[in-house]
């Protein structure tokens, strides 16, 4: 499935086609009411509250607004506005008709949104509760799994299910398998039974197996959910007032230049000193830059699939970047916290982006503190050791700067900072780096500290960079994706790394196998009345 018009990610609640967001004091209701005719691309109907990328883009928008616009919301109830069906998961016709890269990108984005919901609970005290009011299958149950609590309607027929393996020949790839055992600690033999049963599990068994937390009688379901939500709200430590509006996106600080095979993303530093975070709201540099960067990543991933290399640049005054960073990290209130975690999630998006990332650090750039994280997220970093290319008489030199931001607030999916990942297990080196915080580091120092891959001088720069980029572009994109994903995540596994690494890798493989995607495969035969034909060889 490909679109002729580029996909956008900017949404507003009053224009949602598939979700309804209603805030009632400490509790927000997020109701799924999918418009069957509202698919992002033509060719399928979104029946039974099934979703496609467009539905999930709205969900993502809602979760962002809940954090920024509604600091008073402590519990978010995710439920369905339709009777007897919570959510049937990702739309099968959409999946069956999609090109491989689209399926994979779709899975990646939906996973990021689910992880974002968990992040809201863990870091913002915004507890997500799934009120499963009807059939809940596949991706539908995966939405529920991303919630902190799952309440299941006790109507003696509604089930939760992960039927991907038996029905579709693919995996519950939005973290389903991982969350069942790792997060909900369902016993692995029971998880095995559950994930191979197309009809799912209902009622008391679902509770016994830990697939859901509680059963709620059908009569008075909403009242009971509401009551439970109010109780949970009392357990949350989220405090905050005001909220800031996430105004429509403008691209002021993040510029994308798409060329054949590659994209240059330039992040511009702030022009002014930081003001009051709350007064500036969505106009404040840090938040605006983060939103634009997030949007840029999402749009490039979806719309520019052959732009295999992203060149990351910054322009601006490092001092001002650090001043803004300090205003956010030092704010110690809900908004500072939200911006911090949002930037963290945006960097994580970069980490799991299947594109080669190359940071170019040139005179006039501002890779300082939080923006240095962009460079550290990259697969390689090149710093120009010499005057600007177009002005050889200039005294200006490229520098980078470490700050507190590089030592904790923006961890990767593996739970480590990018520096800990880069120097995995080398505590002495990390201690050395900690001593080099808060002052300018020249190209030579950056090399010595191991913070850059190479530091070509002004005579070599253009050729070295050209050759590096051309060389990269000639390699197999698949091999690069695999290699980069391996290099980027060292050390411990977390639920996140399992979802993005292990699970995604298997899903990608399965998505290209004839048993799933072939003309007689389960994904293609689903709903045709014909049985899938499997190649019985185990590989």
């Amino acid at each position, binding site marked *: 499935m490909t679109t002729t018009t580029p996909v956008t990610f900017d949404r507003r609640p009053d224009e949602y086609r598939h979700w309804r967001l209603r805030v009632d004091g400490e509790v927000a209701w997020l109701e799924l009411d999918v418009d069957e005719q509202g698919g992002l691309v033509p060719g399928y109907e979104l029946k039974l509250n099934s979703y496609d990328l467009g539905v999930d883009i709205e969900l993502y928008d809602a979760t962002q607004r809940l954090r920024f616009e509604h600091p008073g919301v402590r519990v978010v109830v995710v439920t369905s506005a339709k009777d007897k069906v919570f959510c049937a998961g990702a739309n099968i016709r959409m999946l069956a008709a999609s090109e491989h890269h689209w399926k994979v990108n779709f899975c990646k984005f939906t996973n990021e949104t689910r992880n974002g919901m968990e992040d809201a609970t863990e870091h913002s005290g915004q507890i997500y509760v799934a009120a499963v009011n009807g059939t809940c299958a596949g991706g539908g149950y995966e939405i529920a799994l991303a919630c902190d609590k799952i309440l299941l309607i006790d109507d003696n027929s509604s089930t939760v299910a992960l039927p991907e393996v038996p029905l579709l020949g693919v995996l519950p790839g939005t973290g389903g398998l991982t969350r069942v055992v790792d997060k909900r600690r369902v016993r692995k033999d029971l998880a095995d039974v559950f994930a191979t049963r197309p009809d799912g599990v209902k009622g008391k068994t679902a509770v016994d197996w830990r697939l859901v937390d509680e059963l709620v009688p059908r009569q008075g379901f909403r009242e009971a959910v509401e009551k439970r939500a109010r109780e949970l709200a009392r357990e949350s430590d989220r405090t905050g007032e005001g909220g800031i509006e996430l105004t429509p996106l403008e691209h002021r600080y993040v510029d994308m230049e798409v060329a054949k095979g590659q994209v240059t993303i330039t992040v511009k530093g702030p022009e002014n000193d930081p003001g009051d975070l709350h007064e500036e709201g969505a106009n404040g540099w840090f938040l605006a830059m983060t939103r634009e960067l997030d949007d840029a990543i999402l749009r490039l991933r979806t719309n520019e699939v052959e732009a295999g290399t992203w060149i990351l640049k910054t322009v601006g005054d490092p001092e001002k970047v650090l001043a803004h960073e300090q205003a956010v990290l030092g704010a110690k209130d809900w908004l500072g916290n939200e911006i911090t975690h949002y930037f963290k999630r945006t960097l994580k998006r970069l980490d799991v982006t299947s594109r080669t990332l190359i940071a170019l650090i040139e005179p006039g750039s501002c890779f300082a503190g939080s923006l240095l994280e962009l460079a550290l997220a990259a697969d390689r970093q090149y710093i120009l050791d010499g005057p600007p290319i177009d002005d050889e008489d200039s005294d200006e030199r490229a520098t980078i700067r470490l700050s507190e931001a590089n030592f904790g607030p923006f961890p990767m999916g593996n739970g480590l900072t990018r520096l800990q990942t880069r120097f995995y297990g080398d505590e002495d080196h990390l201690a050395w780096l900690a001593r080099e915080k808060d002052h300018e580091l020249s190209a030579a120092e950056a090399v010595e500290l191991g913070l850059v891959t190479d530091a070509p001088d002004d005579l*070599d720069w253009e*050729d070295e960079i*050209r050759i590096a980029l051309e*060389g990269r572009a000639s390699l197999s994109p698949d091999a690069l994706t695999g290699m980069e994903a391996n290099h980027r995540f060292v050390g411990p596994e977390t639920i996140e790394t399992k979802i993005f690494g292990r699970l995604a890798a298997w899903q990608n493989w399965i998505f290209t196998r004839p048993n799933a995607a072939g003309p007689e495969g389960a994904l293609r035969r689903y709903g045709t009345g014909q049985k899938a034909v499997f190649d019985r060889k185990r590989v």
Partner: protein
Amino acid sequence: MPEKIDYDAKIPNNVNLSEDRRLQRALEGWQPKFMHWWGEMGPTLETQGVYLRTAVSVGREGWAHFDHVNVPDYRWGIFLAERDPDRRIAFGEHQGEPVWQQVPGEYRADLQRLIVIQGDTEPASVEQQKLLGLTAPSLYDLRNLFQVNVEEGRHLWAMVYLLHAYFGREGRDEAEGLLLRNSGSPDAPRILGAFNEETADWLAFYMFTYFTDRDGKYQLGTLKESSFDPLSRTCEFMLKEEAHHMMVGTTGVDRVVIRSAELIREHDTLDIGPHGGVPLDLIQKYINFHYTVSLDLFGSETSTNAANYYTAGLKGRWQETRRRDDHKLTEDARTLERPTGDGTWTTEELQAILLLNLDLRSEYVADCQTGVKRWNKILADAGIDFAFRLPHPGFNREVGINSGHHVTPDGTIVDEATWEAGKRKWLPTTEDLTFVRSLMHPVYERGKIASWVAPPRQGINGKPFDYEYVYLT
């Protein structure tokens, strides 16, 4: 202000060196190291001037300037053949596209490797020939030795130029590496085996310049076809100079054979060792050795690397543009003779593109044959019933499908015992080498020559044989 160096005067070139800051800086770093290397590893003999040919430009007028030159002051220079602005890629998957003036990132590593390997061979022979000046049979030969040496040095410069100009810092590191490896060094030997062998005597020098430098000619010929135009043009000019080395080799062996024939007739015996000549069977042993070691330089008969280089357009075939086929070779087949365990030869049909090393080697073998014919004619004219011949390509091989098999010079596959027993007849023994070395007395008087070699028919640049080619202290 630092003093402005006149680069064009110091380093004759046609690559716009005086305007190219990057190249200047690279050379400023490299040149002192080169001079140090030349001092350590170059010719041992001190001279006051050698009658050398220096290229000052690539045109007809410029490439052969003769004068007495103090060897360390030789102006090595950087020359590429004139650029053909319409040149297009002649083979492989890019066939028909304009040639590249820049290194494509995709092929950076492969091109760099090819250039480094070629570059590594150039200074190696200087190192191998380091001591020969002490035993030169005449001033004429001594002069030729220096000419070959400075030109190998210039060929090193040519490869270094490419590394400096097109391969950035890594290129500069590799250029330095060319001086850090040394022929026969136990720690950092030259990359290819033949360049770690000793060239201990002048017969070996003639053989080396005939057989091993001829391999260089063919390798340069394939690189001359490269789609990377600066490499192509560099090699084209190098081939011009290489021709002189061939001449030294061809006429060198000629002159040994002529002298041996004279002694045979004079003393009416093939056993001319006691009369200060090199016996013909010993010359044959030298041929056997130098020829087969040089065959190893062509690499394995079947090579996917060579195929990849070809498809990518990095390295073509000998005289690629004159070949009449599709220049892609994916459809063509060719046969390969392969030794088997039971002592017979089998033929196997393979894709032509996998046999490019064999293709080049066949061109080389045919070329080597012309020398053998030439030497045999000398013997025939002298009425001597003896004929040299090239051994079978399976003989004495360390590289490729024949390595691990024992093949006699006539192509019979034998067991190890038979091989060991025959080896003394086929390859120079320690006694043979000692004997040849015993003939190597230096002759530094004008117009005089050693006992074992005839004077040349012609001098250099129209000068007579007794010209003072080298000023010694």
